[in-house]
């Protein structure tokens, strides 16, 4: 579905100078406006604590959005990330609280749990990629399968029950801090950095953009198109796996019904607001981070100022539309 080309039809040559500036820095502008607005109206906004709160709340979305951005760069989309988060978040406690916990050192059990949970999410990502690459199934449908079934699997694993735990070694991922900065922020930063570096400096990055730019040409150029596709979905799965762990670590509880619910849409919105075209061929990762921060800040602003949930939805919708529209105005000129 993602192919409707941003039509070149009516090229309006002279985009007003002001608009051009705004659109080049669409997400940045939206973010700046929100910041200023908050400083003006939100009580107790300027504080380290506010920064920490926003960073921790946006962490999982950014982590998921990184993988999503790679998928989108190949012209795909991954609806299953929320469900994969749930699966990873359910499996980890099953391991470190279950059979293997007693076996020896809790640290080993936690390490095993982290690796296994993320690996399972990655493998399910490979499954998504396999459906897309091997059968040529539209990404939105291919990942819809795990979107539906994935959460079901997570729920079946624990029969829908909540798992709660008190394991400081694990909770550290979500609750600990280094130099006053939450651990999860480091996790996030590392993943963003790795992705940016990969896209800028490696062959894989170029290939991803090539596949998203023109898949048939990529095939005829002898690029390993299938492997690249499988790889990006795998990366997206891995990211979702990590995000799932972060969520349960913050809460010291794993709720298969709730982990990652609706996060796919937030991640996609972050990518779009950040200026990467959903048609593929682009991966503006830093833009995506900014997009996620913008969406987070909208949420924070509305919540902190007592705007009712229902109205907040409408405002959020309007801001996303505006930000994406500004980005697109730029692409048209």
């Amino acid at each position, binding site marked *: 579905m993602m192919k409707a080309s*941003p039509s070149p039809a009516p090229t309006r040559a002279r985009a007003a100078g002001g608009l051009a500036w705004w659109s080049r820095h669409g997400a940045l502008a939206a973010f700046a406006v929100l910041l200023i607005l908050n400083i003006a109206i939100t009580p107790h906004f300027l504080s380290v604590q506010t920064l920490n709160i926003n960073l921790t709340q946006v962490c999982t979305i950014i982590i998921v959005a990184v993988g999503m951005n790679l998928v989108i760069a190949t012209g795909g989309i991954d609806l299953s990330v929320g469900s994969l988060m749930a699966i990873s978040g359910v499996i980890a406690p099953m391991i470190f609280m279950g059979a293997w916990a007693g076996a020896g050192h809790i640290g080993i059990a936690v390490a095993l749990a982290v690796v296994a949970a993320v690996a399972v999410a990655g493998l399910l990502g490979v499954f998504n990629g396999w459906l897309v690459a091997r059968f040529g199934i539209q990404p939105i449908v291919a990942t819809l399968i795990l979107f539906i079934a994935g959460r079901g699997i997570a729920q079946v694993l624990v029969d829908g029950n909540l798992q709660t735990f008190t394991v400081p070694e694990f909770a550290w991922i979500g609750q600990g801090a280094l130099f006053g900065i939450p651990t999860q922020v480091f996790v996030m930063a590392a993943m963003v950095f790795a992705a940016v570096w990969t896209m800028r400096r490696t062959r894989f990055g170029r290939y991803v953009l090539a596949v998203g730019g023109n898949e048939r040409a990529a095939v005829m150029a002898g690029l390993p198109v299938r492997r690249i596709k499988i790889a990006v979905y795998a990366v997206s799965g891995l990211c979702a796996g990590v995000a799932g762990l972060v969520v349960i670590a913050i809460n010291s509880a794993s709720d298969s019904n709730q982990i990652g619910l609706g996060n796919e849409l937030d991640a996609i919105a972050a990518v779009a607001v950040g200026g990467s075209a959903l048609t593929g061929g682009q991966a503006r990762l830093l833009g995506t981070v900014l997009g996620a921060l913008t969406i987070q800040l909208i949420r924070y602003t509305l919540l902190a100022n007592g705007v009712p949930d229902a109205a907040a939805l409408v405002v959020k919708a309007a801001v996303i539309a505006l930000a994406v529209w500004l980005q697109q105005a730029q692409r048209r000129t």
Partner: protein
Amino acid sequence: MVSSRLEQLYKHGAVIALVALVVFGALRYDNFLSLYNVMSVCRNNAMYALVALGMCFVIMTGGIDLSVGAVAACASVAAAKASPYGLVPGLAAGVGVGLAAGIVNSLLITRARLLPFIATLVTMLAADGCALLLADNQSIAVSYTSGFIDIGQGDVGPFPIPAVIALALYALGSLVLNRTSAGRSVLATGGGEEASRLMGLRPDTIKFAVYAASGALAGLAGVLLAAEFGAGQPTEGVGWELFAIASVVIGGTLLSGGAGSVFATLAGVLLMGTLFTVLNFENGLGVISLSAYWQSVIRGLMLLAVVVLQATVTQRRRQKHAT
């Protein structure tokens, strides 16, 4: 030729699977084919069918409409609020709200040039919010005396009115798709937007129309929702868009646009609806008791089976006529 037989099978795949499932149900369960059950399945699925019909046209243009569920919920509230004034005002309010939301989508897509995914995602959020605001976070009772509920709860002979409406609109949809140039232009738009613009067709007008129509159909679905359940429900409609997309895909319409069938979509809707009923009856046998969790796993597996079959066939076809 093997592959062409496979192609046929796949073309009617949804229909064949539906028939198979019905036969299976009839043999295995008592009362499965009772008039009551058949009619209630038809009544319950009418509103999903309407949403899927709109989605089918949207997908044929190569787009997608994520907003249908939220729009239907919003429309059901509007319809409920207008229901004391009678059937027509209620109907008009619901369809009007849906149409308005559809036009917002159309404008975002054809004027602001947002991608359908983002445009309709945004409308989904906004419609969700508007539904709650309009309803003040409550479900809104419809008037039981103004004749409004007949459109949801009434019958024509043994046939539930919602099902009759849906069937009529599917017939109309099929006619439009196959026998009018607007319908063919929908396919042309999906098959190649720029090409169809160069051919002198008007893809923007077509897209405007399909999103507006999808909105209006979602609005009508909202009206049926309100009338059938006696209340406008701002929180209903979650996941309808995915249900509709799945139905369309199961019906064999290409998600990349440019090809599709209206009645196969209906078969897709009924297949999904019947599957739910079969699972309910299976639970009723008492041999196993499937939780909702297993049901989503099963739904996912069914979708998997269908799309893999679909993909295998299209791949073969592609190989046969490699350009």
